[in-house]
């Protein structure tokens, strides 16, 4: 590798809908400094990936791993020197965490109704480009989002139990 060993692995995490519109985008470095450049990149990414069912591509000199589900497209972007499997680990963790949080309903509307859950989950998975956690169980646990139909008090109890079990 001609680059300095570093924990900074992820350049961006993106979620687009099936029109290629941005639902979520977090860029961790200055590869695309302005909103205009970011949107152009997203447009390019979407046009190259939305028709194919493959999960990895090289675009604009960056490695992009992706996954689509119903009407959502998930992307994790890293340098072309990056270990592709690490990026894949991030993508899988994001998808599995959301899948649990949304009760397997990983589609646009469910996601939009739980945006705060998405924000918190991504915040637990990647911090400033460093992979913070790759285990979806941990992520869901840390986000600790209350489900819609579980009463507040009950939820806290289960959580307390979980915590106890985990660290006892």
């Amino acid at each position: 590798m001609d680059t300095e060993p570093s924990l900074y692995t992820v350049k961006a995490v993106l979620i687009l809908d099936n029109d290629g519109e941005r639902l979520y985008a977090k860029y961790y470095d200055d590869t695309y400094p302005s909103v205009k450049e970011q949107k152009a990149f997203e447009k390019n990414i979407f046009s190259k990936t939305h028709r194919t069912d493959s999960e990895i591509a090289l675009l604009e000199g960056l490695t992009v791993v992706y996954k689509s589900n119903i009407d959502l497209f998930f992307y994790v972007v890293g340098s072309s020197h990056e270990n592709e499997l690490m990026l894949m680990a991030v993508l899988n963790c994001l998808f599995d965490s959301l899948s649990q949080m949304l009760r397997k309903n990983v589609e646009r509307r469910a996601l939009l109704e739980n945006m705060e859950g998405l924000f918190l989950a991504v915040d637990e998975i990647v911090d400033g480009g460093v992979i913070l956690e790759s285990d979806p169980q941990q992520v869901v646990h840390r986000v600790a989002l209350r489900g819609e139909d579980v009463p507040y008090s009950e939820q806290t109890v289960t959580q307390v139990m979980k915590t106890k079990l985990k660290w006892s």
Partner: protein
Amino acid sequence: MIKKFDKKDEESGSGSNPFQHLEKSAVLQEARIFNETPINPRRCLHILTKIIYLLNQGEHFGTMEATEAFFAMTRLFQSNDQTLRRMCYLTIKEMANISEDVIIVTSSLTKDMTGKEDVYRGPAIRALCRITDTTMLQAIERYMKQAIVDKVPSVSSSALVSSLHMVKMSYDVVKRWVNEAQEAASSDNIMVQYHALGLLYHLRKNDRLAVSKMLNKFTKSGLKSPFAYCMLIRIASKLLEETEAGHDSPLFDFIESCLRNKHEMVVYEAASAIVHMPNCTARELAPAVSVLQLFCSSPKAALRYAAVRTLNKVAMKHPSAVTACNLDLENLITDSNRSIATLAITTLLKTGSESSVDRLMKQISSFVSEISDEFKVVVVQAISALCQKYPRKHSVMMNFLSNMLRDDGGFEYKRAIVDCIISIIEENPESKETGLAHLCEFIEDCEHTVLATKILHLLGKEGPRTPSPSKYIRFIFNRVVLESEAVRAAAVSALAKFGAQNDDLLPSVLVLMQRCMMDSDDEVRDRATFYMNVLQQKQKALNAAYIFNGENTHCAPSLNLRALVELTQKPFDMKSVPLANTPITEQKTEFAPVATSKLPEKPGPTRQDIYQEQLAAIPEFQGLGSLFKTSEAVQLTEAETEYVVRCVKHTFARHMVFQFDCTNTLNDQLLQKVMVQMEPSEAYEVLHYVPAANLPYSQPGSCYSLVRLPEDDPTAVSCTFSCTLKYLVKDCDPNTGEPDDDGYDDEYVLEDLEVTVADHIQKVLKPNFAAAWDEVGDDFEKEETFALASVRTLDEAVGNIISFLGMQPCERSDKVPENKNSHILFLAGVFRGGHDVLVRSRLALADGVTMQVTVRSSDETVVDIILASVG
């Protein structure tokens, strides 16, 4: 519990987006409810979500409005709702750079970070570190140290990662946490391990010994985290590269042992590290290649991609090592992921035999339109490499390239194809006509000015020498009618070349030229007028000078000057026009000079222009005329001595100026009145010294010497100067640089400086050497034969001659074809004073190399000088 969005939205189906028509101002208006008591967590949460959503969409928040919203948000810390609190942390992070006075939340965050609620602690640390600066960091240092070694993994990870982010800003503070990080590295949690290792490496990376110790410790103790293993492999391979340790190093053993790790991520990282190591032999590559081979049949696309991409890299240097995987690669050709299929094919093209080429090319063409430009360029490069390997396949390649040229694609892609076609034409004369025909077709509809001018130039160079030049004229003239100025100008130049070389085409070319003389653009008109006049003279010598070889010899702006001269017939000294000093490498840039003269990206001033300006500013050097040549810098000292001196030789018509760039590397000395005294061995006369007044520590300064070249003996072109650096030393305080009042004289002996024949000759590229040869004529032709006993190969002989004479090889004659034992080298240049010099050197390989040198020039002395210096 989460607030249901507007009923209408919900009913309108899945196409709705509750955030679609959010207005920033309306959201900020809503944010006022943050101030209501009691706090309504659900509504507040929803509004925070909207704010973050807007920020995420790239909405711009002004400082004022952001600060206002931020301050309102701080009230929400009174609520104990978990999700709301977490969203507050996120808002703080998102707004850290937009809002003012974000540090007011420091105490709230510090409280959460040290509190009992584990769910808050990690995120609170990360938010806090986001808003903290170096001075404030010291206040929370104690908490950070505790957090790093906290037994809750999320807290420890958060603290480690935040510390890593802050290394850039506050290295000195974070450095003090090394012991805590060390302790965290032995944590059971895999992520904590990884983060601790990353932080430790960042803190120690400048200390090679510490890194090596750390590696030693972790490679022995073994880690649980695959991420940490990947990091270790990277650190180890970097250290191996830096220390240039061999493959018997324990670090290499460690990397190799990782090939047997149970995590694919680690195995791949190790294989990739081995493949990327410089000087890897087939033996070390073999185990890495065989794991990559296994990955090729993995059900995971990312793994197949990673494997084949790495194998592709191996194939560039060690095609034979990959041959074993050919079967697996064949299976990947039909992979549904086109990136994988392309990489597989291009790898096979590198490793496969000549017989498989046709089949592979057919495979690629079936899906080339589906892959991204990046991979198309990869394909073109593979084809280009293939053409060099199997020249006989050029017709298949050419066909394929022409099809690619017709497809859509960006500039980089098209340029790669055009370059590839051009290199095929140059390597295989028999492919010239087809290649030119494809390029002609391409410029009929080409939106890239650079490519069009490049191709026109090539047509002008190669077209007239083909059996039926007339067919290209139509394509070229179409450009004059249809294109932008730069392309039109290039087309006119190309036309002129046809007219000059093909007598039967001349009348038609003249008619076309006449039309071009009515062009709306100045440059096009000027060129047409100029060429018209030259062509009408029907003199071979004029054609050679001004049409074939003229363009590269003189700066493009002077073209207009020349046209003027032709028209007014006034005497004008061409020699006063400075030579274009573009560093000429025949392969690529030879197309550039004229063709690009009208493009917006004007080339910056050349190195010589800069020197010319600097020298002109020194009064002693006025009246020397224009600068003829500037040499590369010569070191006169070893690299690490007290004073570092290098010399740049500037040649003028009758003088030379030596520029000494000196650097003083002693921080306790100030040098004054620095000059280099020179003792010539020949009749060279030192006229002037221009000393450097002051030479403080590590600030480079220049002094100069002006030398007159011997006029009575023009053949004395070489001379050796013994040089001594003389100066006044004043000791000074290393810290302040304040010098003492008194100083003493001192001197320092430098290495000898040589002036050779190359310093008197400027390189000039003659694209058509034969024409130039005829133009100069045989009035002053001399010939001599030499034996180069010490030289063993033709390549070596050619290299020696070029560097010794400092002349430009023409017609690609600097490349000796393989398995030949004779070769002709063509060299062109201009001697000081403006006389063209051409050298034809026939080389024959017997025991040593025998060389017959023929020199032609417009001046007899120059011929003698060249021969004398060779002998």
